[in-house]
């Protein structure tokens, strides 16, 4: 299982992600992003959404995929819990994600993510079974 660390910055916030596979990297990055907006409260899985994005490399796929998750959060009040299906064919990523609608009593919100940025962005496979990503969010 991957893990993320928050990166402090005066104006905004970032996350550093370590994971054992590309799927795990995406899952953990999504957890990190959701932690920034809703640091407390468990998220159940009562809804499933499909997300498909295109991108020329893993970094673009990750930014575009997290941006779609952020869109679902903003418009559908959907909080991510789990990445299920994950398939990359050519430059196209197809996923299904589980989570639930925000319950204001259980999910106190801390911040609003304006966008997922490419600032200092890095996604790389360090060794087989070890992936790393760095990314920043505009809050």
């Amino acid at each position: 299982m991957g893990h993320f660390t928050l990166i402090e910055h005066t104006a905004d916030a970032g996350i550093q992600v370590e994971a054992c596979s590309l799927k795990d990297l995406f899952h953990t990055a999504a957890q990190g992003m959701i932690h920034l907006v809703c640091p407390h409260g468990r998220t159940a899985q009562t809804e499933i959404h499909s997300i498909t994005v295109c991108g020329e490399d893993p970094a673009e796929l990750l930014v575009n995929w997290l941006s779609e998750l952020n869109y679902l959060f903003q418009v559908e009040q959907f909080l991510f819990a789990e990445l299920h299906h994950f398939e990359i064919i050519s430059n196209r990523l197809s996923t299904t994600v589980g989570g639930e609608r925000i319950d204001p009593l259980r999910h106190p919100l801390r911040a609003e993510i304006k966008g997922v940025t490419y600032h200092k962005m890095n996604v790389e496979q360090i060794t087989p079974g070890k992936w790393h990503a760095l990314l920043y969010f505009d809050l």
Partner: protein
Amino acid sequence: MQEKMQQIHDYLFEIPRTGKMRVPARIYASAGMLKDILNDNAAEQAAHVAWLPGITGYSYAMPDIHWGYGFPIGGVAAFDMEEGIVSPGGVGYDINCGVRLLRTDLDYDTVKPRLPLLVEALFRAVPSGVGSTGAIKLSLNEEKRVLQQGATWAIENGFGRGEDLDKIEENGVMSSADPEMVSQHALERGRAQLGTLGSGNHFVEVGVVREVFDAGAAAVLGLRKNQVTVTIHTGSRGLGHQVCDDAIKVMLRASQKYGIELPDRQLCCAPIQSPEGRQYLAAMASAVNFAFANRQMITHWVHEAILRTLGISARDLNMQVVYEVAHNIAKIETHTFAGIKRQLCVHRKGATRAFGPHHPEIPAAYREIGQPVLIPGDMGRYSYVLTGTERAMQETFGSTCHGAGRLMSRTQAIKKGRGRSLTQELAARGIIVRASSRATLAEEAPEAYKDVSQVVDAVVGAGLAKKIVKLHPIGVVKG
């Protein structure tokens, strides 16, 4: 970076043109402020902006410069209309984030006894907080009309008066908007958010004019000592954020297509005259109009809340828009550069337009004094009203600073606020604060921000603006 820096005068430093920079970068700041700026890597970002095709003059940074995405916050860059580019990173995610200042006929002593009630009423009247949604949910067709008509839409629908438009940058509507260039995602994100403050550093603030530096100019603006004002700081909400997000995807491809070398992917861009460049400018202008309408609607609710709480007539309140500025925007403007009048695409990201006296785009009533420039500080200290200068026209394409800038990260501010009641501390200083969460309040603590007076002193020292009045907060609603 520090070793490269050359001091031009007390408030101006230059990073000479090296490597792939097409022009030098210039940073307006005092020597004392420069250390923080260099620690933040923001100067390097200003140098990176100088790589972009068609940049004219210099890549500028204002004294409130800090690390941004692609362009630094506090950055100003103008691009040639034929050879130049437009970049969503040069505007930022919160398109047309801006400030509106309202004046009233009320004195501090009249408001003081009912201040807690007034702040509560403002908090209830203006939806705020993370993901805040408004009192209205627009149909997609109506939302497109907002994107086309800006503040005019709000006025036609009963939010404010026609005369408000004269006192808004662009008169509250950019005619270059094309809602068809705005994605379905952006429309969906904006649909329920019109007339909302949002979160973070956005606010509605009741203030008092405490110091008048230029009584003549203050009188022209309808401002005088001890007078109660209201400041509104917000932008285009999720709609603008999504327009930026969408544009970055397109611009990454466009940068490759047009062979534009980028030192940072977040600086992705397209030639102004390309289909991608035109599409972004039309979508951006639509988001600009959404923000104009947003602040116009909030003004209406502020007006109603004051009347209701103080039990006075609209005539006794006599609330009027002093001015409204945008501080995240790209605009096609005419400037004289190297003695020749030319059209340029001026990007201001965390920077304010500051046109000097006699400019035709300033409201007729203010033409003698220059464009009002509104510089909010933090919720515990003060804000300023400045005016633009001829020197700003000559040096910075009529631009100046936009605010204080953060000193601490959000987490640092929260840690520092543990065990304290910021609400009580501020109340003891005569400032009533209401926020949608304790965490937001702690994040926005006054000490989390730089002292805005240093920023203002630097732009005034550099001749990019003149001080007119200083406002002190007495009531704050935070998102």
